[in-house]
């Protein structure tokens, strides 16, 4: 799968967040890293069809994404999106959270939807959590259910916006393990993350986004060993300063 960004710009109330972001990426797994406020979430939400850029174009496998209501509605159904936190419907149990998109966005029959959901719960060791509400689940369980829900519809692409940054380290590991497993199954994904270990070892490519643009991108094996730009070198030094 190829994703092409052509001069994408976005401004929020006079604040320039993305300026002429361009690039073409063959996706298997990409990590987006960069300083806070650099526009990572904004870019991911544009790719996910949740936000419309002020100008520029987005192409997936050569097809231009139209930012019109009807087009986006269909587009979003085929793309999974996982939020930093609170990504489950608060008034529904874990299983109901899974069933809702399958039945109401995909038009799957109830029996089939229950079957698909149960299988995923089993696979990721969430069966005991089935009938719990989000407020009764740990942050890690919530995130794993959110990921399971996003992959249940077999999306073309899974987008994750800092899925572990609100979690304790032990929960972070359980979520990242699940992701690694899905990636090995061939799921294509873009993840915004502060977990440099995961970006380096589990993602093929890395995009470094700072100061409203893509400063550097490339294979993760290269980029962490030999950062080319001063910005990325400074960023990595800062982040790795306290690493044990």
């Amino acid at each position, binding site marked *: 799968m190829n994703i092409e960004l052509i001069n994408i710009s976005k401004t929020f109330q006079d604040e320039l967040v993305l300026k002429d972001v361009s690039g073409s990426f063959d996706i298997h797994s990409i990590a987006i890293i960069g300083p806070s406020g650099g526009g990572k979430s904004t870019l991911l939400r544009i790719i*996910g069809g*949740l936000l419309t850029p002020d100008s520029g174009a987005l192409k997936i496998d050569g097809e231009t994404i139209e930012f019109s209501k009807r087009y986006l*509605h*269909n587009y*979003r*159904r*085929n793309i999974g*999106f996982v*939020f930093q936190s*609170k*990504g*489950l*419907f*608060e*008034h529904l*149990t874990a299983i109901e959270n899974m069933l*809702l*998109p399958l039945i*109401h*966005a*995909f038009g799957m029959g109830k029996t089939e939807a229950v079957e698909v959901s149960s299988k995923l719960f089993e696979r990721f060791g969430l069966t005991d959590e089935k*009938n*719990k*509400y989000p*407020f*009764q689940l740990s942050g890690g369980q919530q995130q794993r259910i959110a990921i399971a*829900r*996003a992959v249940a*519809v077999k999306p073309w692409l899974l987008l994750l916006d800092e899925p572990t940054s609100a979690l304790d380290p032990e929960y972070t590991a359980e979520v990242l393990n699940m992701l690694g497993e899905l990636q090995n199954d061939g799921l294509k994904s873009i993840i915004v993350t502060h977990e440099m270990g995961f970006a380096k070892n589990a993602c093929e490519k890395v995009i470094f986004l700072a100061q409203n643009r893509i400063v550097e991108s490339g294979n993760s094996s290269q980029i962490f060993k030999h950062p080319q730009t001063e910005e990325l070198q400074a960023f990595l030094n800062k982040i790795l300063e306290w690493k044990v």
Partner: protein
Amino acid sequence: MKQTLSKEPSRSKKIASAIFVAIILIGFLWFSVNAINLKLDFSTLYQYRYRLWEGFWMTVTISVASLIVSLALGSLSALGQNSRILVISYFCKAYVQIIRGTPLLVQIYFFYYIIGTAWGVNNRYLAGVLILSIFEGAYISEIIRGGLASIDRQQYEVAKSIGLTPAKTLQLVTFPILMARILPALAGQFASIIKDSSLLSVIAVIELTQTVQEISADNFRMFENYLFVGVLYFILTFSVSLLSGGLERRYNHEYRVNQYQ
């Protein structure tokens, strides 16, 4: 969970406490009645039973009709207040402010004698329902607006991301969350409608209060009449609160969980 369970008082304790409270309340009433040497005789009301029954039903009918109309008005005005079209937003805000800022009695006279006469609404029952609905709708509007504002924006973002249409989002996300949050307040407002309908007696709508006023002019037994009618109103409002308790449990996530466990 376990802690709250162990703190739950035992059944016998609950019953004993309830009886104690009832004795205090009845004792207080009985003492007061005796202190002014009042001899209450409710049997005189028996001959008016048909009129009381009709008044009672009129109150129920007017309240239910007003609840339906005021829910519609309240929903529209809650949505209207958030409208991007300024004229609509201002109109809804003015409606809520003015209605909540003036007494119902003043509104009844104003709408019935001035607006109603001007627009040819002569049926006092219809007028009564409309006036009451306009009044209660302003309060319901605020309840709904507050409920909508309390829903986390992220829930809509999630709905969008999984590809729900706006209509489905309203049906499957907004409505159930909103209901769980505002049902207690809505039930309270319905109890208010029932009580406030008594003021329609000033335009001679023959509901419960008007009926009792007419009976009082006939039998001069003010105390019995009003005490009795007070009990009737309480039966109505208490039923509403029982009913809403049941509905609340239906919409309350936490209760549904305990059923599964």
